[in-house]
Structures are given as C-alpha cells and as structure tokens.
C-alpha cells in the first residue's frame, strides 16, 4: 500500500513537471525560430479537370494541399467552411448586385465562415496530350478581382501521375514564394541506408520520394556532408583492399572520400597517415573541408581543416581528449560547434575557426552530440540524453546566443542526427521509434505532423542539401 502511494506521488510529480516545463519553455524559443508571427489563412478548393486530365486530379489536388500544409507557413481553412459556389477561373467571379449574390465573389471567402485571406483556385485541361494546370492566387480581402490577383500562371506536365505531381508542386512553390517561404521542391536529402546489406549513401527528394543509391562500396560508408554549392559530397568509408596474394578482402582504416555529385566520380582526396580519418563538414566556400583525424600524433581524434584535395592540413584543436563532429556556421564561416570529450562525457562546444574562444554550449548533463547549424546561423539542433538513460537521445534546439534550449522529441525511441532544411523551418532526423531506424521530418517549431520519409532497412544520418542531383 505504501509503495502504491509512493508510485502515485511519483507519477503525479512527473506529470506536473512535464506540464510546467512545456508551459515554461515552448513559446519563447518557437517565437525566435518562427519569426513570421500570424500565419495567413488560405483556402484551396479542389480543382476540376477536363478530358484525360480528370484521371489525375486526385493526385494533383492531394499534392497541392499537402505541399502547402506541410510548409508550416499557412493556416489551412477547413474545407467544411468553404462556400458552395467555387470559382474555376477569374471570369466566374460576379459581384453581388443590390445586395444579392450573382455568383462566386471575393467576400464569400473573406467573410465568415471561411475567414480566408487568400484563395488558390484554377482547373486542369488536356492540350497536345499534355496536362495543363491553370492556377491563380487571389487576396480575397481586396475590393475587385484585378486588385485581388497575385498569381495567374500556366503549368505544363506529362499526362500521368508524375505530371500531376509536377504541376501541383510548381504551383505550390510559386504560392510559397509569394509568402516569402523558401520551397523545398528540388532539394535532396542524402542519408545512410543498410537496405542492401551494407551501409551506403543514398539520396531522396525532400518528401521521401525518388530514393536512389549513391555509393556501392559494400563496406561501412557513413557521415555524408554536401558542399554548399551542391557539387560535391564527402563521406567516411572503410576502403576494401585485397589481402596478400589476393586471398582475402579486408577492410582498411576509415578514410575520407570526396565524390562529384554531378558525375558521381571519386575525386582526389589525400588522407592523412593515421588510424582514423573522418569527414565532418564543408566550409561555406565549398573549397575546404573540416575533418577529424588521429593525424596529430596525440593518439586522440582532433579537428583539422584541409583543402578540398586533402592538402594544407591545419590543426584546429590541440587536446588530450576526443574531438569530433565539427560544423561551421554557414553565415559567418568562423564559428565552429563540435563535440568534445574533454569533460569526461561528450558535450557540445563552440570555438573560432583558429581554435580560440572555446566555450561549452551544453550543460554537461548526459551525452550531447550531433550539432547542426540552422541556415541563418543562429540556432543549432543536436541530440542529447538529458533526462534519459545513456543512449536515449532526443532532439533539442538551441538559440546559440542565449543558450536557451527547447526539446523537440520526447522519448519515442533514440532520436539522432538532426539536420535543418534549406528553408530553416523543417528538420530531419533519425529515430528508432518504430521497428527499425528511420528518417522523419518535422517543423522546428513542432507545428506540423511528423512525416516518416523512409521504410526499407535502417536509415539514418540525413543531411538536407540544395543539391538537385
């Protein structure tokens, strides 16, 4: 009985603690991450298709809606609040006469119940065996249709599912661009997958589609990093060599490989004579690489800067502790965040590119690893075991200037390797919350549902790049 009371007290305590934490922390950081304030409300009635295009309208409408919803930048007006008369093109609009409705009008959308600020409408047709989308975006708070029109454009795709997705994505990208949100369309996520039986580098579209194998080294290949100009990839692999007399295939010590993303050819990169060389991050000029290696001779992995071909080695850290995972601030090119074991457990530190002004960013609790800069260079995402047993990582975000921290995942599996999308709003990471390790995307402010991007084998270490290859 006494044990029960203790148990109940403990549960209530934990419950109350959780409530007070989430109340205290969430609003502050999300206001710094999502500066855009009130989100515009948009209505998108389903588009109709003429002729052959009818067969692909479900795909077109579904893609358009989810692209805009998953951007996290817009409030979607509930479809049940839409008026009955839906315009297909600008000429459908008829202003009311003597207070009586003559057809669809702007105020049907701007007034209650929809209370929309914007309306995206249009239709699809078949022309020369191609799928053609006519899309408009109106600001329905304006007095007349010519003042209301913000976008009026034609999008052409092939007459199939792919074509329907393409035109919908292009229209969505134009709408998002109008609202100042960067579209992720065309960006790729590189990641590590073991679905072939070996860890290899793969890539996929920002939404998990179009997954392609990039490397075929049939050993352990991991830690991808993409150059900011989108032309190169660096990663770490155990090169396979023939043993004496060609008798056995053996794995060599881990080394850095650099490939062209345009040709997929291996480029020249001279690895240091060391028991370990690992790729970490490209500098903003795409001409230099941050690595960690035992080249220093101290016996501990240290952080170095090298030229793109491995020459010009410069040591940045000089410690007798493990130094790994250096990531450079993409805005300044000077601030480095990295993981160091100098305090006994791995923690996140910052320093200048010349190794000066070292300061610990994480509190020293648990293990803090996998730092990743936001594109604006003001925040980092990282994986931390704070509040959990060793190994049970969650994703956290930190405002680097104030060191204010917010927790993005809450104990569902091991959550690691966060990486920001080029839009500075989306975040990808890997998690063991399901049966295997898979890659998930979400919004940094937690305001949209989490999407699972991979399903086959185990997939982790996602890096989001502007590269389109």
């Amino acid at each position, binding site marked *: 009985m006494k044990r029960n009371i203790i148990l109940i007290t403990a549960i209530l305590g934990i419950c109350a603690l959780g409530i007070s934490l989430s109340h205290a922390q969430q609003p502050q950081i999300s206001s710094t991450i999502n500066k855009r304030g009130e989100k515009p409300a948009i209505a998108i009635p389903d588009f109709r298709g003429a002729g052959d295009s009818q067969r692909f309208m479900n795909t077109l409408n579904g893609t358009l809606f989810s692209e805009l919803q998953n951007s996290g930048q817009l409030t979607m007006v509930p479809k049940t609040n839409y008026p009955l008369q839906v315009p297909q093109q600008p000429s459908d609009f008829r202003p009311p006469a003597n207070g009586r409705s003559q057809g669809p009008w702007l105020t049907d959308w701007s007034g209650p119940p929809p209370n929309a600020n914007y309306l995206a409408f249009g239709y699809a047709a078949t022309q020369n065996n191609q799928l053609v989308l006519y899309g408009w975006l109106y600001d329905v708070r304006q007095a007349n249709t010519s003042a209301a029109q913000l976008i009026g454009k034609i999008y052409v795709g092939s007459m199939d599912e792919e074509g329907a997705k393409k035109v919908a994505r292009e229209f969505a990208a134009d709408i998002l661009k109008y609202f100042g949100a960067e579209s992720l369309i065309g960006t790729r996520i590189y990641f590590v997958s073991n679905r072939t039986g070996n860890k290899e580098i793969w890539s996929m579209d920002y939404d998990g589609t179009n997954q392609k194998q990039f490397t075929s080294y049939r050993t352990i290949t991991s830690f991808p990093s993409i150059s900011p100009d989108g032309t190169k990839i660096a990663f770490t692999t155990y090169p396979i060599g023939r043993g004496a007399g060609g*008798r056995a295939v053996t794995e060599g010590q881990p080394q850095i490989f650099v490939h062209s993303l345009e040709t997929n050819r291996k480029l020249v990169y001279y690895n240091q004579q060391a028991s370990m060389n690992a790729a970490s991050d490209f500098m903003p000029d795409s001409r230099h690489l941050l690595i960690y290696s035992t080249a220093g001779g101290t016996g501990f992995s240290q952080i170095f800067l090298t030229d793109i071909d491995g020459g010009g080695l410069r040591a940045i850290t000089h410690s007798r502790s493990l130094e790994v995972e250096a990531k450079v601030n993409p805005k300044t090119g000077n601030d480095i965040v990295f993981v160091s074991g100098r305090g006994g457990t791995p923690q996140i530190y910052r320093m200048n590119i010349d190794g000066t002004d070292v300061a610990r960013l994480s509190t020293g609790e648990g293990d803090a690893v996998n730092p990743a800069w936001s594109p604006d260079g003001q925040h980092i995402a990282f994986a931390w075991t704070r509040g959990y047993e060793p190994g049970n990582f969650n994703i956290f975000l930190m405002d680097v200037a104030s060191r204010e921290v917010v927790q993005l995942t809450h104990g569902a599996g091991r959550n690691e390797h966060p990486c920001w999308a080029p839009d500075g709003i989306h975040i990808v990471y890997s998690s063991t919350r399901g049966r295997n390790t898979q890659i998930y995307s979400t919004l940094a402010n937690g305001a949209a549902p989490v999407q699972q991007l991979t399903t086959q084998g185990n997939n982790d270490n996602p890096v989001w790049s502007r590269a389109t290859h």
Partner: protein
Amino acid sequence: MRESKRLNVSRIGAVLLMLALVLFAAGCKKPVPVPARTLPPVSQDGNRTSTPNSGEKPVINVFTAEPSAIEKGQPSTLSWSISNATDMSIDHGVGAVQSRSQRQVFPSATTTYTLTANGPGGSETGTVTVEVSTAPAAPPTATIGARLSSAEMLQQQAQDAYFDYNHNDIRPDARDALTHDAQLLKQIFAQEPNFTVVIEGHCDERGSAEYNLALGDKRSTSAKDFLVQLGVPATRIKTISYGKERPQCTDATEGCWQKNRRAHISAGQ
C-alpha cells in the same frame, strides 16, 4: 491487546491513504505549478548516481558473480547495486566502482571478492566467491599431429580487453587480459616472423556513431600501447576502429554492452 492496537494503526493508515488519494485526485484536475526540479547529477560513466541519504547506512542490494564457478581463463561477471554510499570499491584489482554496474573478471585461482561501500552513515561490506577450476591442460603442441596455425592460436587464446562506458583507460581486468595477450603474441611472432595482427576497437550502441568511431580508435591504440610497453613489436600491430558498427551482441542490456566495449585482437593480412 497488541493485536487490536495493530488493527487500529492499520485502520488509521487506511483512512490516511484514502485522504491522500482524494487530495491527489483533486490536485490532478488543476495544473498546480510545480517548482522546477533539477535532475540528480550524472556521473562520468553516464549512470545516475544515487544521492546518499545522510545518516543512513550504505546498503548492498545486490552483489553477485555470474557464473560463480569458471574454468581458468574464462570470465565471470560481477554485478552490484549499492544505495546510500559515496565511495565504493572492490578488491583484487577491480578498484573504485559506480553504485550500479558490472565488471568482468578473470581470476586465475578461486577468489573471494570483497565489496566495500562507505557513506555518511557508516560502511558496509559484501563478499562473493568465484570458484576457479584448472582447465584440462592443453596437450603439448609436439604431441598433436598438426600444430595450431598462428591465426588459430590467436583466435582461440587471445583475450579481449574490456572498457567502461565513454572510457578508454585500461582497467585492471583488461590489464590482465592484455598481459596474457602479450605473451601469446610474442610466442606467435617468434613462431611466424611475418605474422601481423589488427587490434579492433569497439563500442556499445549507446554513444553517437561519430564519438564511438574516435573512442574505438582510442581503445585500440590504448591496447596497442599497453602491448608495446610489454615488449610486443609495434610494427606488427595495426589498429582499426569499428565504433559501434560491428557489435558482438545486440541486446539492450549492460551485459551485452560490456561485451561490445572491447579491444579485440585478430589476424592481420
């Protein structure tokens, strides 16, 4: 008389319990602000140290050896869990320990391990004995037709050196294993002048892949440095870190994690 008194006490207890439950249930409906609570400090090993209650005597909840009887050269795992202690140690070279952990030992003869726990409220000791039987002596190499190849000797006789979580220092049990390995390697190298070995450094699954790559590297080079100090030629040893990529076992238990935190010697090419 005594019986009825006990009954009264339990009745009062039941009433108090009901009252407490009602109060808790009422409290649950309103989100009562709770003062932020700091988590207990985390030790270097990543285990949360239990804060000793001042005044209470240390308690050894568990102290076992599994298996408690081994053949010479085989490992036995000591496991313990201690409360209310500030410093804890085990004799026979194990040294200072955390309040809840495990350690593999390789005693060469029957050994009684004594766990001593000291705290503000006094001290407590516990003992556990590992019975060691001598393994049937390996037949002298001359008596069997085919001599074991160097690679076979290495595979069958080399002992892994084990490490603590987030650590790369050579523990007393790893010292024993590597001292054994140094003798074995000298014998093998004398027998086959061109033979080389690779020391693989491994980690358990809990740390990050990147940190584990560096940690596995340091474990393998620490083991190499130890062997070289004992006279094994450095030129015959290469090291490689596998981080957590090649675990020996995949259960999420401390027993399994300990097996994976190791330096392992295999034949070079």
